[in-house]
């Protein structure tokens, strides 16, 4: 007997007549529905909404803390870039002024050190002689004062003449 696909499919469809035994259906149904392991009832919509909100809040909090930590580091590194420059301040003038102040302070400090270390004019002349940096001032000082003795002598002559 030649069988076609249609013939086979029709025959297979006949298996739909298989039905379970009524006694089995009744007993199985009763046992299952009376089983102690009934599923946990689903929480109400408000409980589920509260759970969702709680989870969302926790997630948002963690994300916010994470952002604070990350942005804090980035901000610290690029603070000069992020902060806008102050209006009305000339940076060049400020730098020139700061340099001038530094120069004055250094000069004063040098003078303090110089006068502190060399109490007499001779000391100062000798010290100046040993410092090449102030060559111009050295010549001037030597011309003006030579030695204290010569000055004293010249002064005495002038006093005696008058």
């Amino acid at each position, binding site marked *: 007997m030649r069988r076609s696909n249609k013939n*086979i499919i029709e025959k297979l469809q006949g*298996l739909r007549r*298989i039905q*379970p035994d009524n006694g089995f259906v009744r007993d*199985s149904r009763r046992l299952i529905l009376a*089983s102690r*392991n*009934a*599923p946990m009832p689903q929480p109400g919509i408000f409980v589920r909404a509260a759970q969702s909100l709680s989870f969302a809040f926790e997630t948002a909090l963690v994300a916010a803390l994470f952002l604070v930590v990350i942005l804090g580091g980035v901000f610290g590194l690029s603070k000069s870039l992020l902060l806008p420059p102050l209006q009305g301040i000339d940076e060049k003038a400020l730098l020139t002024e700061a340099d001038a102040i530094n120069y004055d302070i250094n000069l004063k400090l040098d003078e303090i050190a110089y006068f502190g270390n060399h109490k007499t004019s001779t000391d100062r002349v000798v010290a100046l002689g040993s410092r090449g940096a102030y060559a111009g001032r050295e010549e001037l000082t030597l011309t003006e004062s030579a030695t204290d003795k010569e000055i004293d002598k010249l002064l005495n002559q002038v006093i005696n003449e008058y």
Partner: protein
Amino acid sequence: MIIERAKGGEAEAFGLLYDHYLPPIYRFVLFRVSHREEAEDITHQTFLKAWEGIHQYEPQGYPFGSWLYRIARNAVVDAHRKSNPQVSIETVVAHLSLGETQSEHLDTKFEWEALLAAMRELKEIEQEILFLRFVEDLSHGEAAEIVGKTEGAVKLTQHRALKNLKAILKKNETKQ
């Protein structure tokens, strides 16, 4: 919706699902195990597991039945692992209403036995797909969801299964 009520723990709603889906699930299991008591045990376990786990059920575009078929399929595999299946074609044929006269009865009985014997020679996946597609009239997509394959694979397997089934029937007829 009945499924939502059952998910909420309402036994009466699950009872309705049980009434609707029990016959096809029982047929599927009986076809696989060919043993009445074993089929009843596995079917019972299938619905018990479904009732216990229904709160976890999430529809994924397929009917609730697909989920039950998957549970039943796993239960059959578990049962076969524990004990060797003893296939009895007579058990399946005994469930079918045959012809009224003795002659009709015998003719139909032989036809069924020939068809079921030929089916048994197919691979398990081919048997399952032929059953789901032509006995339960499920779509390719539903059958694919149940057996865990793609629709394309189901179509291909169905085509191959029908071809093989015809060849086996022809071979068996020639022997007789």
